[in-house]
């Protein structure tokens, strides 16, 4: 399975992945229109530390505890991608309680959750975060 993997040595902490994620999921086709003067709610988050930065997004786990714990059946795994059905989700945040990576977050309206779906559900079609990463600090590949 292809996944987004992190090369933390290369991460500049530039946050471009966050902007590209927010843009890809905005439904807009012009970045300034989608993001200018707006608070962004990306599904990938850069952690910044003492000389170390890295971007964290859903690991699409083999045995996903978020899916097993979901109280509504809104989370499911199809073809290796963990997806959320936002019509079923009621925003109880059980998945946020169990995700060991901290990669599920409330959607901006607070009534449902959001998470990385590897850009399979938006027009991008492949992870926008990886595509736009200037330093290959995140890569989309199969490491077994």
């Amino acid at each position, binding site marked *: 399975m292809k996944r987004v993997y*992190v090369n*933390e040595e290369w991460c500049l902490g530039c946050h471009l992945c966050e902007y590209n994620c927010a843009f890809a999921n905005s439904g807009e086709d012009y970045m300034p229109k989608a993001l200018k003067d707006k608070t962004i709610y990306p599904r990938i988050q850069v*952690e910044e530390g003492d000389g170390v930065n890295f971007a964290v997004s859903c*690991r699409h786990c083999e045995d996903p505890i978020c899916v*097993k714990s979901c109280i*509504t059946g809104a989370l499911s795994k199809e073809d290796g991608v963990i997806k959320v059905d936002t019509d079923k989700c*009621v925003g*109880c945040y059980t998945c946020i309680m169990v995700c060991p990576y*901290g990669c599920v977050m409330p959607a901006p309206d607070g*009534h449902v959750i959001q998470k990385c779906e590897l850009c399979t559900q938006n027009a991008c079609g492949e992870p926008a975060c990886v595509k736009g990463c200037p330093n290959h600090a995140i890569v989309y590949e199969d490491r077994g």
Partner: protein
Amino acid sequence: MNYVIIGNSIAAVGCVEGIRSRDKTGSITIVGDEPYPVYSRPLISYLLLGSTDEEHMKYRPDDFYEKNHVKTYLGRRAEKVNSAAKTVTLEDGTVLTYDKLLLATGSKPFVPPMAGLDSVPEKFTFMALDSAKALEAALKPASRVLIIGAGLIGLKCAEGIADRVGHIDVVDMADRILPSILDEEGSAMMQKHLEKHNIRFFLSDSVAQFTENTAALKSGKTLDFDILVVAVGVRPNVELAQQAGCEVSRGICTDTSCATTVKDIYAAGDCAKSYDITTDTDRILALLPNAHMQGMTAGANMAGGQESYTALPMNAIGFFGLHIITAGCYDGEAYITREPGVYKKLITKDGLLKGMILIGDIARAGIYTSLIREKTPLSTVDFDLIKEHPQLMAFAKKDRKIKLAGAKQEGDA
């Protein structure tokens, strides 16, 4: 192989998924007394709130039973289990035989004896889709609602109907709300929040006498009401297990393989006990993720697997936009953060994170939960950092490589 499952809810679904992960062809039969395909029970309050509907409450897609080759008897009650003959008899006399049986009978509302209760015409419990529908039919914009019980179910009910009725009074014997998951400070914070929404609390109190429309409390107060909801707690459905000879102490006793003490009978979900890793005891954990995962393990083992299930008590629940996440046990040294709208308590003992209460700031809470579940020695993480905010930065670089870069755990091939 011939599998029979009694109960058609979350643990049953987990069991079907567990069985089918190993056995694609064995025959599976589910008997459930509610006349619906499996639905998410916690959503009954969201149904009244108007944020979901019956279609979206379905816990699994419509083709779940067909795809998994499950035969169902819905709207039918199992009356008897004969563990010697390995049969289950339904209320209409149908006899099913089994090789492996799962008891997934869940729990029922506990209605304690209360003087005058029989004289109350509009009284409800809040456990099932039918009870929610019945309550909904009785609601009127001016209704005065009295809820007995300030626990999770009573208060979820209150949230669900608060905007649809005149006012809500909640009475509980306990001196604070949500005592099963919160400490005193957390309870007080949530109570204040709920009081802003048309809800009054009468704590350390109970009903001495009901009439048709009044409740005289032990404290001497009298509350008028049109609609009564009794939500003081739940009791596991263990009668079939007892009849079959399984050991029961409050809940059905199971080992970590989810087997009961009777051969070829398993139990999972709210009717069963599970092993709580944080208190080192067998307990009933009436929680949905627990029911699903215990059911999955039971199913896998009924189909010849060797899986083991241990549980972590944990709750994610919100009221009117204020969210709570709790996990583990609260015995130990506390680290507390207070900010406007936020209360956060982390409990450590013996160098481990043992429990937590998060109100208002639940971001990335699962990082804490996994420290509790994995019993990660806090000496191996930067606890000062992670105390402030859950983050992967607090883990050692080699652990981050495993988590984020696909590196293998030492000892793994």
